[in-house]
């Protein structure tokens, strides 16, 4: 926005200078005969003769023709003649600039618009000499966009009553859709926001409107529309270049209060880039972890626990394909290249009916669409990884591609280390993303994404871990009419891991696991009128799991192969939801999703003695189901209800109820998520998980929507989620149901969140008090944990405080400070040793009865931008940071090991000292 001030101030000075300066200078003379000459051509000739520079709106003058005869006459006279009987006026300044504009005077509205958002920062204006030679149209703004703001669009014809206006909001430079931007009219107060394709649909009474467009990372703009009937309006907006260093974490400024959604967090890539990380690499999941209600069991783990839910209860979608392991290197990096990301949305409560299959949250990650106008690239060089992204049009304005890759060079570094501890170590990963979009016509577009991430590491041992994610999705968007569009999505997800050990040739082995999930879905959005937004659709996905194979590696290995049979299942759902604006203050969103799950054969299903704890000893019978036969069926409704009531313009109350069902379970016996965790489908012996969440929140904005505050409280109950019997064996267990139990859980908490979006100091502060408790009291006493009483889950961390702060010294320098504190996670401790039954035994505490030390960390980063010249070879920036500034040794894991007959406790801190980083980013 600073460039806008420059412009405004220049205008001011220009105006002030008008009466005096314009006449003191020797008048420039013009000669020529113009007969119905286009204004542009006329200006060209005048500029050539006088050296003056003309500024005008090309769109506004496209129908202006000039008829004038001049013989060495002053410019002013010629212009007066030329513009007489038109709506256009002109003005000149003392620097040889001529402004041609419509209306009676320079529109006061323009200035008001530019002045209102922010206070003028005089020092900044003074410090921008390079702006002086730029045109008086706002620096960095295309004249075209300004022009579009003043042009009056006439839409449709002959309509009466209501009409629907639809179209897209796109970025002017790259042609990428702007997601989550809102377009609205202030009177009547009707608005809509763009979907993931940048499409919007707005139904209004016919008439004349000033539509306002607001969104993340775009400049605020308006369109004047005379709506006479249904029609289309494509809107191009400008990237808000200056906000590169600002925290912008949501779309509409008043969305906090006026939006329907609760428990929704949106973060765009610009915000993510400011949060300091351990290796200087922008990390999506790391930023998500700073949000209220989101926790992880420990540092270096990207398993998210959302509002007391387990790590497997998050649906992670990467352009609509499910991702099973979103991390690299055991969780130190998230598996997304920041250069390709558009943003992320996290639904913690009030999950839209469109989504299902996981209990706690939906993390919807979208990539950028690629530059539709010209070839561009970006990249970065960090201490452990480098990345590169290329994007550009395939057919200009119609289709674009974006290809991005990231790789680590830690292997190379390890080789340089002449340390024998590291001689047997290796750690390497990479990820690749490709995205192509193509617009066939107004009605049809397709979008294709391919993604792959791969990891391979071995840490000072002879065991190598490898894991691989592959996803692909293809979307076809078809617009039936302005009120209805549909998206057909086909997606495929694959995850596998592979652990191999070859240290001892005799017992060298390979342990493998894989999951494949093709999915097909059709989603429709229907806008019958301005008060209703209806979404409906169907989806189906097929799971195919190879639950484990343990095979010998090499000729000399004597390992007995052990291959578990495959598991298969089909999950289908239909849904419909309606958002109904009952009054301007009160809105209701009603949704219903009905999901059906079938476990499919071929499969051997074990039957156990009823009323007994399931063990191998109570196994009664084995039933064989042939291929394609249904082994077990589960189905049920999932309710999604939310309501909003605005108390006034600045505050509102929202409430919601969400039920979710989950048919796939992650089995992890370790405290943190590890790549060797397995996913298990529901079957005759493992029931689906069901979750209910009630939430209520109060939202209030302060200081003209620049400070947002919210308090949300929730209560959640979880049924039949998977917990483990004491001493459970999960890897290669052919009858896993004997080691797991269906546990009940409850979680509740209060989340307080304050964020400031603009100004020199910005960022957010969140405090969460929450509990997450588990109870396993069903069945026999042998299946109970802690005697059937509620106990804290692995990720029960009652107090959590996070601050993400950003201070902007100047346009080019800004600093970020992160502060995180949370209660230590629960742990089961071995309390004593004793002899019973001829052997040494360990006496353990109740499960999760103790806690590891509290977690606390401070990070600091300094972002240095290159200069702000619009045209140069490459834009670059440096990020210099220190992770864990105080060097606190936060425990990553606490473990006990028997050495010389003594059991000793150790705590491992991964980032036990301050870690400095430097990253270089570029964009061309």
């Amino acid at each position, binding site marked *: 926005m600073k460039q806008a001030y420059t412009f405004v101030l220049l205008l001011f000075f220009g105006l002030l200078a008008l009466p005096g300066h314009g006449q003191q200078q020797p008048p420039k003379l013009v000669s020529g005969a113009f007969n119905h000459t286009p204004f542009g051509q006329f200006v060209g000739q005048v500029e050539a003769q006088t050296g003056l520079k003309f500024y005008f709106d090309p769109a506004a003058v496209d129908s202006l023709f000039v008829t004038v005869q001049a013989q060495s006459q002053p410019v002013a006279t010629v212009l007066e003649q030329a513009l007489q009987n038109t709506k256009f006026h002109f003005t000149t300044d003392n620097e040889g600039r001529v402004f041609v504009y419509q209306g009676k005077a320079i529109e006061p509205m323009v200035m008001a618009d530019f002045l209102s958002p922010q206070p003028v920062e005089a020092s900044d204006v003074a410090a921008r000499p390079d702006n002086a030679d730029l045109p008086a149209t706002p620096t960095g703004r295309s004249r075209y966009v300004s022009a579009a703001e003043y042009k009056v669009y006439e839409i449709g014809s002959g309509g009466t009553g209501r009409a629907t206006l639809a179209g897209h909001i796109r970025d002017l430079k790259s042609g990428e859709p702007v997601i989550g931007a809102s377009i609205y009219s202030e009177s009547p107060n009707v608005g809509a926001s763009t979907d993931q394709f940048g499409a919007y649909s707005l139904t209004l009474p016919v008439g004349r409107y000033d539509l306002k467009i607001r969104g993340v990372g775009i400049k605020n703009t308006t369109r004047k529309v005379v709506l006479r009937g249904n029609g289309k309006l494509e809107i191009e907006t400008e990237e808000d270049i200056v906000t590169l260093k600002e925290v912008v974490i949501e779309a509409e400024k008043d969305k906090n209060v006026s939006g329907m959604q609760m428990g929704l967090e949106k973060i765009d890539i610009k915000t993510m880039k400011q949060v300091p990380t351990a290796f200087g690499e922008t990390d999506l999941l790391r930023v998500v972890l700073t949000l209220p209600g989101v926790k992880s069991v420990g540092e270096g783990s990207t398993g998210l626990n959302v509002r007391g839910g387990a790590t497997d209860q998050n649906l992670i979608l990467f352009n609509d394909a499910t991702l099973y392991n979103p991390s690299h290197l055991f969780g130190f990096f998230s598996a997304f290249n920041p250069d390709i990301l558009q943003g992320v949305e996290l639904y913690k409560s009030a999950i839209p009916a469109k989504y299902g299959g996981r209990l706690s949250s939906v993390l919807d990650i979208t990539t950028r669409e690629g530059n539709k106008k010209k070839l561009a690239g970006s990249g970065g060089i960090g201490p452990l990884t480098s990345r590169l992204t290329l994007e550009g049009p395939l057919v200009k304005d119609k289709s674009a591609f974006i290809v991005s890759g990231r790789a680590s060079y830690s292997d190379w570094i390890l080789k340089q280390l002449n340390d024998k501890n590291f001689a047997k170590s290796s750690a390497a990963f990479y990820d690749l993303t490709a995205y192509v979009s193509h617009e066939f016509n107004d009605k049809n577009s397709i979008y294709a994404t391919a993604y792959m991430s791969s990891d391979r590491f071995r840490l000072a041992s002879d065991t190598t871990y490898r894991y691989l994610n592959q996803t692909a999705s293809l979307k076809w968007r078809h617009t039936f009419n302005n009120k209805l569009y549909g998206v057909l999505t086909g997606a495929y997800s694959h995850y596998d891991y592979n652990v191999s050990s070859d240290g001892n040739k005799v017992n060298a082995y390979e342990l493998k696991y894989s999951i494949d999930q093709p999915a097909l879905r059709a989603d429709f959005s229907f806008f019958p009128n301005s008060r209703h937004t209806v979404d409906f659709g169907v989806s189906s996905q097929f799971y195919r799991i190879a639950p484990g194979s343990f095979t010998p590696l090499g000729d000399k290995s004597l390992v007995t192969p052990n291959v578990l049979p495959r598991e298969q299942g089909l999950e289908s759902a239909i849904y419909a939801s309606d958002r109904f604006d009952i009054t301007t203050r009160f809105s209701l969103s009603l949704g219903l999703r009905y999901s059906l799950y079938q476990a499919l054969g071929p499969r051997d299903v074990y039957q156990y003695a009823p009323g007994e704890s399931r063990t191998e000893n109570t196994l009664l019978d084995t039933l064989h189901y042939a291929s394609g036969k249904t082994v077990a069926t589960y189905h049920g409704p999932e309710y999604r209800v939310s309501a909003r009531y605005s108390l006034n313009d600045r505050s509102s109350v929202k409430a919601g109820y969400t039920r979710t069902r989950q048919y796939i379970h992650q089995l992890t016996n370790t405290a943190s998520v590890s790549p060797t965790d397995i996913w298990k489908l529901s079957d005759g012996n493992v029931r689906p998980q069901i979750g209910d969440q009630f939430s209520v929140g109060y939202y209030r904005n302060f200081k003209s929507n620049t400070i947002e505050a919210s308090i949300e409280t929730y209560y959640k109950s979880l049924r039949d989620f998977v917990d483990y019997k004491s*001493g459970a064996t999960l*890897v290669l267990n052919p009858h896993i149901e004997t080691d797991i139990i269906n546990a009940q859980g409850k979680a509740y908490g209060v989340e307080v969140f304050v964020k400031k979006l603009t100004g020199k100091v910005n960022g957010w502060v969140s405090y969460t008090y929450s509990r997450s408790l588990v109870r396993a009291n069903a069945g026999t006493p042998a299946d109970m944990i802690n005697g059937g009483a509620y106990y804290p889950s692995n990720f029960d961390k009652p107090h959590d405080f996070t601050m993400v702060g950003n201070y902007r010294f100047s346009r080019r320098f800004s600093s970020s400070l992160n502060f995180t504190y949370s209660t230590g996670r629960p742990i089961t401790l071995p309390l004593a040793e004793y002899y*019973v039954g001829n052997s040494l035994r360990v*006496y353990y*505490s109740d499960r999760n009865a103790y806690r590891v030390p509290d977690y606390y960390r401070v990070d600091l980063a300094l972002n240095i931008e290159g200069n702000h010249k619009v045209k140069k070879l490459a834009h670059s920036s440096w990020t210099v940071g220190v992770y864990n500034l105080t060097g606190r040794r936060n425990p990553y894991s606490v473990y006990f090991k028997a050495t010389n007959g003594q059991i000793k406790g*150790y705590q491992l*801190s991964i980032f036990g000292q301050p870690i400095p980083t430097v990253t270089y980013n570029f964009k061309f």
Partner: protein
Amino acid sequence: MTRITSPFSRLLLWLLASLLAGCVDPYKPDVLSSPRSYLVVDGFINTQGVTTIKLSRTFAISSLPKVPAETRATAYIEDATGARYNLVESPVGIYTSAYLNLTPGRAYRLRIATVAGVLYASDFVPAKITPPLDAVDWRPENAGMGIYVSAHDDARATQYYRWEYEETWEIIPSVRPVLEFYNNAIIPIRVPYPTLCWGNERAVAIQLAKTTALNKDVVSDFLLRRLARTSERLFRRYSILVQQHALTKEEYAYWEALQKNTESLGTLFDPQPSQLTGNVHCLSNDAELALGFVGAHSLAQKRIFIERGQLPLDWPYNNGYAGCFPPDTLDPKVRVIPFFSSGYSVPVSQVPGTYLISSPDCVDCRRRGSATRPSFW
């Protein structure tokens, strides 16, 4: 970035090292550095025989496993009618009763008063009769020697079984020295090493079975022990004593949980442990814990022998001394007295110019067992 200057690369190395190595610090929360010492009760009330109860204390996990015995306590068995049967301490920490014949079905418990005056009692449990072992069978199989137990209870009163076993086997060293190093000289051996010893080991594993899923109370061919084909225990003569316990449902659950509690925590594949105390409670102080489960049942046992001649001919012989034979030859240049003074090697016999040598473990079978013939052998 094609060339990396030396200081920069050092920085990178340091960064990576800090990632991969991390810092490992001792973890000693207060609860571990000053652990409470709890009474541990190990044993069962033998309803037809001598009851043996071991009393000890828990000890801190970071200390060496030296079991502190609980001495000078008074302990007695009490039945529901109030009758008492006293236990006597002998030796230290082990308390035994006289030969008892307790009434099946009646409830019994163990009561303990420590020397400090703290009172403990186990829950009353019904006295059970352990049915006899029908058979302890053995079968040579591809995977090795399998030892199976079978039992049944026509009254269907047992249902929950636990087995313990104790193995005994002959040990025959390959090398028999005719010399010894004594008083800085090599002399003909005065007392030859024993040529036959008996190894003995009591099993650590907890073996459990239940028949609740069956419509008869029958345990058929429960695999108790698997010995590798190459096991040294099968070299000449092997014996296994199997002891059978009939459990109540609660006692079975206790042993099952104990079986699953492992000793390591925090690594990738470690299961979740559970808190497990048993059925012994402190009467003087509710907060004081006691560990152990005292059941009441009789003991059934059976011993079998397996002779080498009964094994398949193609099974390899292994006396456990494969690395000892043939003996090494001492380098003639080595000076004899300092060499043997270390005690790591012993002379076996004389060969021209030098000696054949071996290690004490190779020649003395008492290091792996006892030279005293067991009474049952």
